[in-house]
């Protein structure tokens, strides 16, 4: 029993990342009808926003501290971040410590802008072109974005720690009444799951309860009619693209402490996210979220040693296997709508 709970918990954080990326992908696909292969790159850019902010915050100058000496007996040189000068030492340290959560605020305007620029600058011109062209041009864009990041940040992963409060693990089993030390779970992963749930909830609430969201949903169902009613649906869809980019971006920001950002992390996630979207059903937002968590949890179940002993290698292929089975038995995915991408 506790092993099962542990695997479900383990699946949640990866599932959250899949769900967030797949949600953004589906938003773009459902509104604009574009298959965005550069979405993984947006996730990666988000993660590098966290790296950038923590670099800005730890930007420091050198002070010679006469009271201490280093091992050679010279006065010790101390790096003092500029933040200390602005906010005082204690607050400054706290700000540096909380760099990753703060990056969410930092990344949202950036990601909104990147998404907006991407849609207006490039993808706008591809609405009338075949899906294959859209895939190809966004694939090219993903390579370009990836290489730009690689040029500025290098090819190695950059560790970006979570705030000190959330480092380490806690005993989840003892909390819910199992034996101690059976279910140990890192704090940050729980934070990530909670964060993902909030973002997903916010996106759904935004679409469900605001006038803007209502118009967007109407546009997703029948773009032409909404346009005939005198509503500038293109403008709203562009904003939705920006929001989808921001969702991918913040997903990347929060994922930075779990997996040190490197320039190809986007591509690694993208392939799986596409599988998630297809399993959930193209164009279905609840489907994307459901499939994201489902596949995340399935993946962690498949990596249990009992399962691997039974079916060696299953942990490597489970997601693809599920995708193949679902596509062949339920061609529209778990919750796909009729008439989407069926030409």
């Amino acid at each position, binding site marked *: 029993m506790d092993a099962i709970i542990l695997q479900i918990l383990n699946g949640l954080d990866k599932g959250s990342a899949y769900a967030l990326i797949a949600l953004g992908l589906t938003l773009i696909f459902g509104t604009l009808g574009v*298959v965005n292969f550069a979405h993984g790159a947006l996730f990666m850019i988000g993660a590098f926003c966290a790296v950038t902010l923590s670099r800005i915050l730890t930007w420091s100058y050198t002070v010679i501290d006469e009271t201490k000496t280093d091992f050679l007996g010279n006065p010790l040189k101390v790096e003092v971040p500029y933040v200390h000068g602005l906010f005082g030492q204690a607050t400054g340290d706290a700000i540096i410590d909380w760099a990753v959560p703060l990056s969410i605020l930092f990344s949202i305007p950036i990601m909104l802008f990147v998404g907006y620029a991407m849609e207006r600058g*490039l993808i706008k*011109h591809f609405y009338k072109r*075949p*899906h*294959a*062209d859209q*895939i*190809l*041009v966004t*694939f*090219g*864009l*993903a*390579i*370009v974005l*990836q*290489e*730009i990041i*690689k*040029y500025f940040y290098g090819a190695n992963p950059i560790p970006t720690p979570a705030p000190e409060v959330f480092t380490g693990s806690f005993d989840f089993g003892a909390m819910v009444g199992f034996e101690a030390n059976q279910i140990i779970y890192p704090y940050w992963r729980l934070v990530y799951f909670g964060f993902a749930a909030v973002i997903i909830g916010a996106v759904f609430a935004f679409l469900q309860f605001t006038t803007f969201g209502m118009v967007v949903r109407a546009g997703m169902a029948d773009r032409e009619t909404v346009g005939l009613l005198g509503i500038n649906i293109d403008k709203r869809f562009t904003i939705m693209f920006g929001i989808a980019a921001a969702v991918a971006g913040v997903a990347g920001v929060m994922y930075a402490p779990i997996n040190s950002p490197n320039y190809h992390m986007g*591509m690694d996630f993208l*392939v799986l996210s*596409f*599988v998630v979207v*297809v399993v959930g059903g*193209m164009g279905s937002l609840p489907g994307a979220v459901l499939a994201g968590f489902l596949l995340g949890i399935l993946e962690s179940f498949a990596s249990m040693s009992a399962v691997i002993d039974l079916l*060696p*290698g299953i942990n*490597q*292929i489970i*997601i*693809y*296997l599920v*995708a*193949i089975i679902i*596509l*062949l038995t339920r*061609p529209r995915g778990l919750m796909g709508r009729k008439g989407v*991408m*069926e*030409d």
Partner: protein
Amino acid sequence: MLGLEKKDIRILLIVAVLTLFAPFILNPFPAGSGWAQFNAGYPDLMQRFVIFGIFAIGFNILFGLTGYLSFGHAAFLGIGSYSAVWMFKLLSMNVLPAIALAVITSGLFALLIGYISLRRSGIYFSILTLAFAQMTYALAYSVLTPITGGETGLQLALDDPRVLDGASTGSNIPVPGIFGLEMRSNSQLEMGDWVFNLSTGYYFSGIIMLLAFYLSIRIFRSPFGMMLRAIKSNQQRLNYTGLNARPYTLAAFMISGMYAGLAGGLMAAMDPLAGAERMFWTASGEVVLMTILGGAGTLIGPVLGAGLIKYMENILSKINSDILHTWFAFLPDGLEDFVVSMVYPFIGKGWHLTLGLMFMAVVIFLPGGLVEAGQRISRIFKRKKTDETSKKSTTTEPAE
């Protein structure tokens, strides 16, 4: 001749001449000169040109003709490599049985994967092929280690049985060859300052590429090819006329899978080891890039694209900042540093950036790839010529 039209004969001849004289054409700069780093005429790279050319030609039969975008073709390349290496291990170091087995196994795998994947079209097909390729990759990397060698890759060993050759007696692992002619043997031809490499392996793969190219022309011009084009332009209409498209797409998928297997087998024949990274999805992405860059649906495009990408990968990526500094040394110091820092991100290690930008530019502005670019340029010249002649005629008219 050969069952081809005049136009196609011309294309075939051009490709044949280019392939035969590639060691000379690709080595235009004397050895030891400053430009020698742009020489691409060394055996390893030339072999890669033609092998990836075969890969891209095969991919083009599927994507260029039917419009089905497969994101998992590298799986067949890997399967071809593995089967070829196994043939070297078990039967003989002769490359012919190895390549035959590579083509057959990859064809069988393509039949299986295609049969399942082709039930869906569009993005679903792309995802299905991607899923299958990633599955083969993951399995080759982990569980199938006894067959594939896992992380280290599949390599030849001294104590392999090699039934036909007999157990090797010496202390060296034998090298692949064809009836005694070693694939890696290379004769250098020196003409003045120029050094040309004439490699057996290159000419062997070059001839196979010519055969593959000829076959692809025949497929393009055949009724079967016409049917595939019909699938691309309007599959629904085809269905309404009472034709079942799936056998045709499946045949195309299988043929292109066999081309990929052939390429993989040749890769193993040139260098007898096979690794799982050959099947990773980025490798599948690469052949997509090659085909689109050169021109999908055209005959010669994929070969051009493959050549261009491999040239960039091997030549452009070697240029470092020191070399750049020597190039721009004629500029004043400050300007030199500035120019070098502007150019540097696009070459050397950053060559992928150039590739990505080029690829995007091609998809946006030239959906027909390099071939379309060539056609447009030649059209401009032709128009000029006709303008000139028409001008001449108008100017000469009064005099007559």
